């Protein structure tokens, strides 16, 4: 039985979730979008996610704190950090703290799809090499 890749997207700008969720659905990723970090963390506490994509600069909570709490709860979860205020220092900090990858805004949905596909493969899901052309609506765990 095929299993859906579950992704939580956290960005305090609602437009980000609106634009990225349909784009990620193209590679068989089920996305839940949040704009409130606390609500997102509550959901993470209640449900397992394969991948978490989080912004860094948010009013209520730092994305790096979200990263820490996600990995504390589920070390296997791949956390991808996105930000419009990327610096080498922040990127290195995120990677040192266990982030899977780092992406700077502005970016194209396909840039994120590529990273999400890589994260999914690292988790054992089969994802087509070129996610843009992927017609697979579901990930298929290899293990």
């Amino acid at each position, binding site marked *: 039985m095929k299993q859906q890749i579950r992704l939580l997207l956290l960005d305090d700008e609602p437009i980000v979730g609106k634009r990225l969720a349909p784009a990620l659905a193209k590679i068989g990723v089920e996305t839940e979008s949040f704009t409130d970090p606390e609500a997102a963390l509550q959901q993470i506490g209640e449900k397992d996610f394969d991948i978490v994509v989080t912004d860094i600069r948010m009013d209520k909570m730092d994305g790096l704190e979200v990263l820490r709490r996600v990995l504390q709860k589920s070390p296997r979860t791949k956390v991808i950090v996105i930000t419009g205020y990327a610096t080498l220092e922040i990127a290195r900090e995120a990677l040192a703290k266990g982030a899977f990858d780092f992406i700077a*805004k502005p970016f194209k949905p396909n840039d994120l799809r590529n990273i999400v596909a890589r994260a999914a493969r690292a988790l054992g899901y089969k994802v087509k090499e070129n996610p843009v052309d992927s017609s697979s609506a579901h990930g298929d765990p290899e293990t």
Partner: protein
Amino acid sequence: MAVVIISSADEQTRRELAKNLARKLGCESMSREQILDAATDTGIAVGKLEVAVLKRLAPRERLARDKARYLAFVTESVCERASKGDLVYHGRNCHLLLQGISHVIRVCVVPEPERRINNVMARLRLDRDKAIEYISNLDSDLDNWSHFIHGVGLTDPQHFDLVFNLQNISIESAGAALCSMAQLSDFQTTPASIRAMKNLWLAAKVRHKLGTHELTAGADLRVSAQDGRVTISYMPGQSKIAAAIPDVVGVIDGAQEIVCTMATTNILWIAESFDPSSSLFTEVADLAGRWGAAVELLRWFTPQEGEIEGGETWLAVGSSPGISPSAHPVPKAMDPTGGIEDDTEESEDVPDNGLAATAERLIAAGRFGGAGMVAGQMETIVTALKSDHRYSLVVIGEMFLSRTALLRTRLTRDITSFLKEKVNIPVIIGDELQERFLPGKRHLLRIAASLLGTAIIFGLVFTHQEQVLDFLAGPAWINWRILAVLGIAIVVPLAAYLYGGATGLILKLMKFE
């Protein structure tokens, strides 16, 4: 007025020293991070530049333009703040920003390693091993950043006036030393240093304005300022953009006159593979600088080797075809997309054999005239040449790379001969460029030999005037007038050739061509 610029890989160390010094000088300190946020808020994709360095992304035309916008914005911001009074500015490699201004003190701070590790462990909540790894990775990234943005290493000592090693001196003492240094006459403002800063500031303001306007954001413009006169140079293929420049620049404080000049000519560099670190790149860029020319790049390959057949993809700007508006997006301060752009068909990973990297270097040098790829037989090169571009030279670079050296040489000569026949432009193989157009060791030897020959002729004539006059008109040679005529016919042109050759080469060395 004191302007102190403190560079260090460790943000905490430079921040502490900057605050200490600012307190002593009675002024405020400003950090790179403050400017960075302002730059990002105006829509400059600084984060993309930073991540490009982190991920070692291949240079792209768009990155080169983002880099130019970033540098213009930061230079403008620092100059503006420095014009108001004393300033202590700190950043990771900000000492490279205000070059050539004598009253700016450029300081390198080497953090105390153990303290730095402890700070990272405490601030980032990392264990010691991870903290050491973080510092090592970051230092490597910062050095790459310095090379990427400024073309020099982070710790190159020739760009500093002073280096503090905090293993041997406290921040308090370093601050006191810098405070005393700022009082030295060497670092006081002079009319010349104030003028240099105003020129830098004005050029940065204009560059920033041009780089963020939709009409000019994709153009390769060289901007310089001298006492209120702003000169903007554009490439021949961008004449349509040039008409809009005065309106885009508009009224800028300090600009009394705006002059737009066009690079007078184009050099076309055709190759299968480009390498911005090669000697040929240096020679072509040098020649372009001497001639005030733009360099167009054309990657040509034969169909059996190529990824496309008979097609042409021009990456050039301005009047060149095939440019989509999204190729040079204008920074948007209020981004309604939340930083999520639309997917495009363009592939970021098409191998281009160094084309984009070379274009990036030329953009940085202000000499980029466009780039393109074409596959097909030799005729496709002729059809790819832009009729509205005035080429003054075609340089043939690395070609037929999959062939043997002997065959490569023969085919390269064939293509050179073909182009010489088909286009009314000088065509030259890259290996001959140095010899033909650029001064080198051979030129020095030729100058020396020519001058020696000239000196011998003149020396002999002036030290043997009596004999010469006798030979030309004396009674002893009255029956041998034909020899006098032959002598003049040989010696005078020879002397003129030697003297003319030597002076021509000397003028070439002095860039008077």
